[in-house]
């Protein structure tokens, strides 16, 4: 498979895994040194915000703890489009546009939940590409009653 296609498929598989709440499958796409971060810029306080910042172990714990919490059960659907892929040696930086939709369980109405940009660092030197880092750069900052599930 062409490298670009492999990279794109990794991004899309990560979205599918999270859509399915198959967190084990998501983590299998990640490098042991994986880092996940959600950030946003607040024009209200004119500051950069960090909403989540976890290493791989932190993500595992987050996923493990999820069933113990009360969460909204409406499914989220991620729609990513890979915009740019920049390969540099053994890794690639991939920028994707992301829209997240929420579908109500009762009636099935779908609404746009959030827009964001994904900046993924992908390791290419181990045979199968792996996510080394994901930065979710939020455009949307008003999430209603919010979510426990990362993007």
């Amino acid at each position, binding site marked *: 498979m062409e490298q670009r296609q492999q990279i794109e498929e990794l991004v899309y598989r990560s979205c599918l895994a999270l859509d399915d709440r198959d967190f084990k499958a998501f983590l299998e796409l990640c490098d042991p040194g994986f880092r996940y971060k959600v950030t946003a810029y607040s*024009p209200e306080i004119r500051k950069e*915000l*960090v*909403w*989540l910042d976890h290493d791989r172990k932190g993500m595992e714990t987050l996923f493990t703890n999820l069933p113990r919490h009360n969460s909204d059960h409406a499914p989220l659907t991620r729609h990513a489009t890979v915009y740019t892929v920049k390969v540099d040696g053994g890794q690639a930086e991939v920028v994707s546009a992301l829209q997240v939709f929420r579908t109500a369980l009762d009636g099935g109405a779908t609404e746009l939940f959030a827009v964001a940009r994904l900046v993924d660092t992908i390791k290419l030197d181990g045979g199968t590409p792996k996510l080394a880092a994901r930065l979710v750069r939020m455009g949307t900052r008003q999430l209603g009653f*919010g979510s426990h599930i990362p993007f």
Partner: protein
Amino acid sequence: MAKTAAEWNAPPPKFPVTHYVDSRIYTEQEIFEEEREKLFRPSWIIACHESEVANAFDYRLFTHPTGVPLIVVRGEDMKVRCFYNICPHRGNTILYDPAGNAKRMTCIFHAWSFDTQGNCVEISRAEQGYQDRFCTKDAGLREVKVEMGFGGFAWVNLDDACGSLADYIGPAMDVLQPYMQEPMEVFHFNRAIVDTNYKLWHDTNSEFYHDFVHYFNRITGMMQPGYFERKYTAFPNGHASVGSMSIQYDKYAGSKERAVGWPGLTPGGWYMVDLFPGMTYNLRTSVLRIDTAIPLGPNKVAIEFRGLGLKRDTPEQRAERVFDHNTIWGPFGRNLHEDLLAVHGQGRAMRENTDSRWVIHGREENSTIHDEVGMRHFYAEWSRRMGRPSYDPMREGRPEPARAAA
């Protein structure tokens, strides 16, 4: 035992009228409009923090709970003032961006310009159009009272005849004042808009019985020593505080000791102060969180969340506070989503025509953490200011309280 319609519609038995409210206080448009005028217009409301307008000419926009758009701006003299964000010419918005720095505040529509003291300093082609009938002196902005205090917040009051902020707060913040001696800085802001009544959010901040919704709080708090000793204290004007305990963060898998702490606060300490009619100070171990509820309708509220650290934080200390904050209170945090989901559920169940009738505030546990005295105290003040008993807001003739509100 399930109820018939008559039993459902009857007030909760065996409680005095101080211990429940009629659900219509959360749904009626008439009550909502009255609350804006009677509760919010004459109350001191947090608009922003001093760190959001740190420099001369810094401004911050704030939509007051009555709906009035405001500009909070720091002048060249470093004094913070507040004005309507409404051009006195054709009623346009003067400043559009939620924050910025503006030596002159100029309306984009016809280029009328204002200084940070509210004076109109420029009317484009004034003499040609108004001759000697109208000039800059006639075109000042509407100024709103603002006081800085209680941790460096900018409090605004639309009532020109209001009393002082100190009188409004009274002793309610005494429990927190020792921990707010150092300058603080906002590091987090976000706004949640939820289909629910603003009071239901404030209620959630005013009772800890709902810790059952929070796995995190059950594990780190409810199941730990000292939890049931936390006490509510009620203060004049509808304010209340909650005493501290030592949160056992290590009981939650993946959580860690919050080493950065807060000056003077016992490790794991946690104080809360609920301020009438919809603000909460929440100092938890390493972070101060401030909630400001801005009602948008009977069943819609915007809640502004702020997270604050110390101005002197090193980057490492700040990063720890941000992490601590977001683990629980961030938009993807463990507790915030649960709280918002819960009040969203109340909004669903109580919106107009659902036939929700009563909300019970009946727990009495010697004012300790699962006692609902905080809400009873709020609704006693609500009833007094509204001139409507919360148990009979449509004045249908229910009996007077059998005993005073707790």
